[in-house]
């Protein structure tokens, strides 16, 4: 890629949730802004724009990353996954989404996409995580509503489902 000039918009193309997409952006445009406002993929949220809160976490070539700490131009040619790509094409929730649903692991839902994208990688790399593993893994994702407990429960339940185990029984009331 040759040097691209600050005041011009440049073509950026990548794979988003398995589909080829393209758009135009100035070099300084943040990837999260490009996803949301150029491509209309508003599922990824902006929470702090300094890399602390985790709301904008997406996956870049399979690895979880902050979309506020990447430029749109950096995504060119890469493979990106966002929350919009998690459910099956018929709308069926992924095991992790389903566990979030069943465990009350979301309230306002603003941090949820970042958590889903982070936990997706965590469970892939460590299919049998401990509760402490999950706590550490989501230390870079701030949730203000839930108090994390239900998120941790959901992550452990989803990991169990993905291992082919019967999910832990529903919390008794």
């Amino acid at each position, binding site marked *: 890629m040759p040097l691209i000039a600050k005041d011009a918009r440049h073509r950026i193309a990548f794979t988003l949730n398995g589909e080829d997409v393209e758009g135009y952006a100035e070099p300084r445009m943040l990837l999260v802004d490009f996803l949301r406002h150029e491509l209309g993929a508003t599922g990824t949220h902006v929470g702090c724009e300094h890399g602390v809160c985790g709301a904008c976490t997406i996956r870049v070539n399979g690895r979880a990353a902050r979309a506020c*700490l990447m430029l749109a131009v950096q995504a060119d040619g890469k493979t990106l996954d966002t929350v919009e790509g998690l459910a099956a094409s018929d709308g069926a929730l992924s095991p992790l989404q389903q566990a979030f649903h069943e465990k009350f692991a979301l309230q306002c839902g603003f941090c949820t996409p970042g958590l889903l994208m982070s936990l997706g990688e965590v469970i892939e790399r460590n299919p049998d995580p401990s509760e402490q593993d999950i706590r550490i893994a989501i*230390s870079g994702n701030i949730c203000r509503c839930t108090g994390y407990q239900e998120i941790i429960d959901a992550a452990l339940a989803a990991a169990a489902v993905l291992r082919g185990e019967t999910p832990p029984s529903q919390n008794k009331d």
Partner: protein
Amino acid sequence: MKPAAFDYLRPADLDEALDTLHEAGSDAKVMAGGQSLMPMLNMRLLTPSVIVDISDLEALDRIEAVNGHIEIGAAATQASLGEWPELAAKSPLLAEALPNIGHFQTRNRGTVCGSLAHSDPSSELPLCLATLGGGVVLQSKAGSRTVAASDFQTDMLTTDCGPQEMLVAARFPVAEPGAGYAFAEIARRHGDFAIVALAAMVTGETIRLGVGGVADTPQVREWQGLKGGALDDALNAFAWEMGGSDDVHATARYRREIVRRIGRKVIAEAKDAADR
């Protein structure tokens, strides 16, 4: 909270990157993982005219053990160092320190060399480099040079890397046989900048302790054969010499206390590791 405008270059190779630095000098900023740089750009704390993005330069994405060093290229991420199969054997200190750096999502993009080049006083990697007595390779169009950690980090956020130079590799000495290593960090929350980070290396009677987060750069002391009260006195003197500052997270006094108290513990852990 959006960056000011800049030109952007994703160079095809190192030469193209160095050419650009040669022309642009201090107006250019090299970006690797961007995990320290991007927040500062977003806050407009810095406004370079051109960003040279080396994150995709495969030639720089390497981790290998050569000549008694772990040599880490400028595009190698902290995550890939953590996943390097030889890490625990080759550098128990780095293996212990790495999980303290930010969060896994930032380690996925953040690079080892980027952290060194950024030179935050609280960062773990500059501390490890200084404690282990490693160095960095700086390259410009004019050639390359190797600089020892102690000469590289000149002040907070300030290094010996010239405006036309790029940090292309870091060299962490491989663990010495018979030496023990330990790392400890006191931070408010998991993944936060350290209030104090400590790295210890014990070889026989030699104790080396590195401390980050107190002075403006990592500070390292080496003592011979110190034990008990004499070691406490040395730690106390070290703590006072570094001074430290108050900020919203902790006081200078607290930082000194951590150097004294956790310093002793981390040295004991390193000694235990050496004895194993």
